[in-house]
């Protein structure tokens, strides 16, 4: 696939995109290791290979733009500004975690950075984004709401109920679909005979676009256009990002249901490698920069690991105090 748009990419922007993607990539791979070592428990869904969408989208948002995600949310949380240490501490069930160990991987929430959260039931997050968009409208500003979901979510009734309502009320919600061709262990063709997610919303005639989700510049440019319109008061929009889930649906998934991507195939698709190749050929990335970027990310992630390991486990009786809001 061609590398993104032909327009020149500012070198500083390119470096920032790379840093953000490297941060997520190293973090997620480290979480994979920690899961195998039993330091992270429970159900964990990694977004290795899908960094470009999180970074291309969230990097342009303000704190007050509410972001929602599903069960594969680490990358989105980090891209929206959640500190690595607090995310990892949450995955390790520690008191220093974003939710003091109460939520875990599928329930990361960082209100301070406008990451209103990950949810565990497919599609359940979409109406939440409508609520944030409605509130933003009522408050009179130009903040928007963004919700990430996968291709499996759009067959659910709640998705189309939400699209109808958001269109009717012209709510500034940007629906970002990471279409990786699989919903859990089932390919899209077993879910629907409509191949493109953007066709599912065809009846509502909302602004929609399908982009190469492994090209962070393409994602970024398309989202920038949508964001500008949303801030002007347009209604909902759908950005479908075609991507690949490099690992299983969850950590430990034996993945007998699909062919593994060959290593050389992945070299072509990997969003980080693609941007690095472009950076080198465009001249804003030195030859030794990738190794340094990766190392910087590793240092940051190791500091997060240290923070998380040193964070105490929460006291068990904390839960009783949190049943009701006071």
């Amino acid at each position, binding site marked *: 696939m061609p590398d993104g748009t032909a327009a020149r990419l500012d070198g500083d922007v390119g470096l920032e995109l790379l840093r953000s993607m490297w941060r997520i990539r190293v973090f997620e791979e480290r979480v994979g290791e920690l899961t195998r070592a039993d330091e992270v428990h429970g159900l964990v869904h990694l977004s290795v290979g899908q960094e470009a969408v999180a970074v291309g989208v969230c990097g342009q948002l303000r704190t007050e733009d509410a972001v929602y995600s599903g069960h594969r949310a680490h990358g989105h949380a980090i891209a929206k500004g959640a500190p690595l240490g607090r995310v990892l501490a949450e995955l390790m069930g520690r008191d220093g975690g974003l939710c003091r160990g109460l939520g875990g991987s599928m329930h990361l929430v960082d209100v301070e950075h406008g990451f209103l959260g990950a949810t565990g039931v497919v599609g359940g997050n979409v109406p939440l984004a409508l609520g944030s968009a409605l509130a933003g409208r009522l408050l009179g500003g130009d903040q928007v709401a963004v919700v990430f979901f996968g291709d499996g979510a759009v*067959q659910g009734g709640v998705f*189309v*109920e939400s699209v109808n*309502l958001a269109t009717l009320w012209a709510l500034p919600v940007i629906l970002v679909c990471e279409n990786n061709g699989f919903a859990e262990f089932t390919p899209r063709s077993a879910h629907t005979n409509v191949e493109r997610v953007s066709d599912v919303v065809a009846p509502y005639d909302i602004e929609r676009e399908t982009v190469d989700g492994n090209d962070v510049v393409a994602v970024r440019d398309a989202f920038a256009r949508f964001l500008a319109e949303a801030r002007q008061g347009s209604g909902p929009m759908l950005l479908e990002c075609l991507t690949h889930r490099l690992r299983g649906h969850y950590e430990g998934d034996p993945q007998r249901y699909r062919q593994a991507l060959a290593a050389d195939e992945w070299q072509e698709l990997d969003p980080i490698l693609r941007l690095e190749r472009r950076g080198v050929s465009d001249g804003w990335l030195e030859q030794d920069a990738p190794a340094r970027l990766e190392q910087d990310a590793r240092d940051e992630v190791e500091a997060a690991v240290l923070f998380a390991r040193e964070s105490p486990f929460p006291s068990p009786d904390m839960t009783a105090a949190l049943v009701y809001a006071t």
Partner: protein
Amino acid sequence: MSENGLPKERLIWMFTQMVRIREFEERVKSTFEEHPGVIRGHTHLADGAEASIVGSLAALRPDDQLTTTYRCHGYPIALGSDTKALMAEIYGRETGICKGYGGSMHLTDVERGFLGTSGIVGQGIPHAAGVAWGAQIRGKGQVVLSFFGDGASKQGAFHETLNIASLWKLPVVFVMENNNYQAYTRVEQEDANAAVGEPLAVKAKAFSMPGVTVDGGDPVAVYETMHAAVERARSGEGPTLVESLVYRLSAHGNIIVPPGVPLHYPEHEAIAIFGNVEEFEAAKRGDPVPRFRAQLVTDGTLSAEEADAIAEAARAEMDEAVEFGLASPLPAPERATDYVYA
């Protein structure tokens, strides 16, 4: 033979069923005035939708099946269910078609393929798909009709079911009777397509399914549209979304009030809530039953006397249904726990 190829007998049959449905529904409505207290709860009438109901059912074979909403009186009447048993059910009598257990919203006649209704908007749509799945397995070419209103198309169940039905090519036709109102709400107030003047049939685009809109006040047009959709389903090509434009001539349902206040039919929402007298008057002028009668008398299919005779027979039939219902006993109270488990 009419110009559209339907034999005269078929046209007369359609007219007869439309008249019978209208007479039945008028009796239900007048029961509130003439015999207060006999009908309890909520009833929903099909007056105004006769052409759509009859035109749809005319396309079926005897072994086809259907599910509908709680606005369900018209379908079993046209299918040939015993109108005495239907009225008795609405009157809560033990001689009712569901022995008094279901009432107006849950008329059922399994033998005639009328497999049931749901009182919850949209929830009968997946039921129909399940029945169609059974038909697909049996492989005898049976088709299932799923009737629902425009309001149901905003329910998740609609979206989920149409996607699966299209993917599995289930032998089902989805018939959306769009009467422009969802209870007291106008369709443009709640539907993004209607809000911009689009027909609701465009929703079919999301499922790679054909979507077609038809004048639900013209029984022959409905028949032709449904015939094509039913044959498509029967041949294994999958479902169609048919949007049938109707106008209900009564309010959404009777008023439900606390005990002691008589139930009655209020004014149509067009007037009561939106003050749109002209819309309602125009709908009455376009009433499909007299319209079809006039068409058949004009083109010679029926003489005026024959049409009158049909109406007279329908009146007599429905008078008898009322008498039967009123004379029938209520069920014994202890029968209440009879059908908990199969």
